[in-house]
């Protein structure tokens, strides 16, 4: 092997990634150079068991495995990767945290690290290293990663969740593009419904899509579950205004959205049943992969901005964490660092085809966002996101309130007319108080 220093390699590979991605051998070369000079020295004979969620996008998964293979070959650390259904990750991690045995590293959705922060390896040095090297973390990434002054997990990426719409149907309704404000959305949705192209967003217990849009709707009008001091503040005029808006919007939805879970809108949209919905890029990715005609007509848009005048989006973060029962904390740190170094991370972002958004500012110029303009909005998911604990801090209460679907239920109650916006907000307040009690 030639005598590269890490910086040399980095420079070369950044140039490379602009054009073509690293091939297998060059990835390995880089990995070996990195291993010789790596910031965290794995323990002798280190072995890691990692757990991740089952892929939604195949190419992403393949690249993830390739990156792991490069890490294994370069460092000699054994890594065994298990893959489980997304919804099973949190229960498994919870059990591991509780019994003090199981996978060393877990990668999964949302804020589960904040359910058991004291069971996790302190990742502050990893976060500082990566943040220093790649332009710093986006604020929401820092919120998700940190508990008090300590990093408890590393936000690997964010799964963007945006408006998916059929361009032709939106234009038929008299709009050039998807409206940028909440009033515009109401008009568009009503018109599309009239034309038989109604849209819809999930109001069932859909942990991804349902949580994302209902939080957006409440936040857009200035409502929030708690204030800056973690005092429950959901029963406010702003929330009620938001709920009234949703109730009006719901009248223009396609029927049945109250039963929708995360997968329903994908099916409905791909079959042409609905003209717009909210989702990750997976609908479009599937349309492209399967060569469907609909792909050319799919566009993505930011969530409209409400009366508060700024983006109020919720996107699902995917952090990873190492449990402190691991015998090889340094190997875990090295592993997590390696996967976020430019050659690996660039290749992986590329293969994620827009499904994941970077959490480090330095990756903003990645070609994945420019080579297909339809991916463009997903680039800003991390930058525009608010944390699920907004406006308070993340912790047990925020994570539990989210898992208990307090906001989703509140919005669904008001939307379907099962309760008036006032009653729905009052009920949510009572439920939230159970978690935010002192």
């Amino acid at each position, binding site marked *: 092997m030639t005598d590269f220093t890490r910086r040399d390699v980095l420079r070369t590979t950044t140039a490379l990634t602009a054009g073509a991605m690293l091939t297998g051998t060059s990835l390995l070369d880089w990995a070996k150079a990195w291993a010789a000079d790596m910031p965290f020295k794995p323990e002798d004979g280190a072995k890691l068991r990692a757990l991740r969620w089952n892929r939604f996008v195949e190419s992403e998964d393949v690249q993830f495995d390739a990156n792991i293979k490069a890490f294994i070959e370069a460092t000699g650390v054994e890594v065994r990767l298990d893959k489980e259904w997304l919804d099973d990750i949190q*229960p498994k991690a*919870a059990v591991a945290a509780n019994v003090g045995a199981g996978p060393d590293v877990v990668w999964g959705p949302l804020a589960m690290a904040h359910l058991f922060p004291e069971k996790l390896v302190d990742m502050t040095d990893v976060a500082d290293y990566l943040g220093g090297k790649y332009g710093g973390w986006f604020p929401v990434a820092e919120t998700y990663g940190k508990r008090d002054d300590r990093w408890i997990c590393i936000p690997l990426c964010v799964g963007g969740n945006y408006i998916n719409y059929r361009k032709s149907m939106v234009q038929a309704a008299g709009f050039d593009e998807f409206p940028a404000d909440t009033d515009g959305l109401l008009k568009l949705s009503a018109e599309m419904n009239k034309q038989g192209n109604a849209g819809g967003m999930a109001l069932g217990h859909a942990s991804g899509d349902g949580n994302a849009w209902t939080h957006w709707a409440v936040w857009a009008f200035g409502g929030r579950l708690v204030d800056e001091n973690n005092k429950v503040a959901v029963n406010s005029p702003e929330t009620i205004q938001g709920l009234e808006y949703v109730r009006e919007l719901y009248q223009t939805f396609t*029927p049945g959205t*109250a039963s929708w*879970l995360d997968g329903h809108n994908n099916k409905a949209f791909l*079959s042409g049943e609905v003209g717009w919905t909210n989702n990750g890029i997976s609908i479009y990715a599937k349309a492209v992969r399967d060569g469907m005609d609909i792909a050319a007509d799919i566009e993505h848009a930011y969530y409209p901005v409400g009366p508060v005048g700024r983006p109020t989006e919720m996107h699902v973060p995917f952090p990873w964490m190492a449990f402190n029962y691991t015998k090889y904390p340094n190997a875990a740190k090295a592993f997590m660092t390696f996967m976020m170094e430019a050659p690996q991370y660039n290749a992986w972002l590329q293969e994620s085809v827009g499904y994941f958004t970077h959490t480090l500012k330095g990756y903003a110029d990645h070609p994945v966002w420019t080579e297909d303009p339809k991916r463009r909005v997903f680039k800003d998911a991390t930058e525009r996101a608010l944390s699920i604990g907004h406006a308070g801090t993340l912790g047990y209460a925020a994570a539990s309130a989210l898992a208990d679907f307090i906001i989703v239920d509140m919005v669904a109650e008001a939307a379907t007319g099962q309760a008036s916006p006032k009653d729905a907000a009052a009920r949510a307040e009572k439920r939230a108080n159970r978690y935010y009690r002192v």
Partner: protein
Amino acid sequence: MATIAEREEVAAPAAWHWTRVRNNRNFLGFWFMLPAAAFLLLFLTYPLGLGIWLSFTDTRIGRDGVFIGLENFVWLADDPVFWLSVFNTFLYTIVASVIKFALGFYLAILLNNHMPFKAFIRAIVLLPFIVPTVLSAIAFWWIYDTQFSIISWSLTKLGLITENINFLGEPNNARASVIFANIWRGIPFVAITLLAGLQTIPASLYEAATIDGASRWQMFRHITYPMLTPIIAVVMTFSVLFTFTDFQLIYAMTRGGPINATHLMATLSFQRAILGGNLGEGAAISTAMIPFLLGAIMFSWFGLQKRKWQQGEADD
């Protein structure tokens, strides 16, 4: 003159005792039962006890709790979602169990008749029970889909409805839909077990009744039903327990939605304990199920098992 036995007793009393003990049925019985008892203790009593203990603590995932007495239960008593789940659980259990019993019994009687391809038909009847729950739940997920439901599609094509049926989006529809799925899944168990019971009833009883001029209804009322009560008791106990503690069907189909209309105590317990991290509260919801379950068991054992041999005595 001393017998041989007496002499041996004098010579080696200790050895003699050991022989007696070794041949004692109770002593042996104890050792034979030990593995089973250890199994029960380890896999049933311990988790149950731990669950009950957790319900009196504020344990969260990853953090040990302290004893807080009845606080979890006091909180739950004030929680409308919990009471909704209790209501749903009862509705689900009662409606599903009654219908499963009625249809299962009917099916068992039908299957008990002589007919061509008897074995084959009986095997087919078991299918819903054999298919993994999650698979059948996913099938129902499609059947009940608002946009793609085959039922809505067929009815629309037949011109009977103009709008798709909102199976899982409207609270009462959703309840009816999940109950139907549970019934579909549970009938084979009831039917096949009762069929086994039916086949143990001696044909001579029916012959005698026929000679006495009994009607079919009288034969059912005075022979089939009384002969079958022990089996019915067992089947219904299990059926009620399975239904009351159902989790998979609901979780795969609705996650307890819409707006908690189909949340059962089991699914709410999982949501609060594992997803929400509040192990203590989740355990309290599970513990709250125990009195109801005990009640159901008591009812079927003491209410339905009237014959003495069923309660450990000799029959009349």
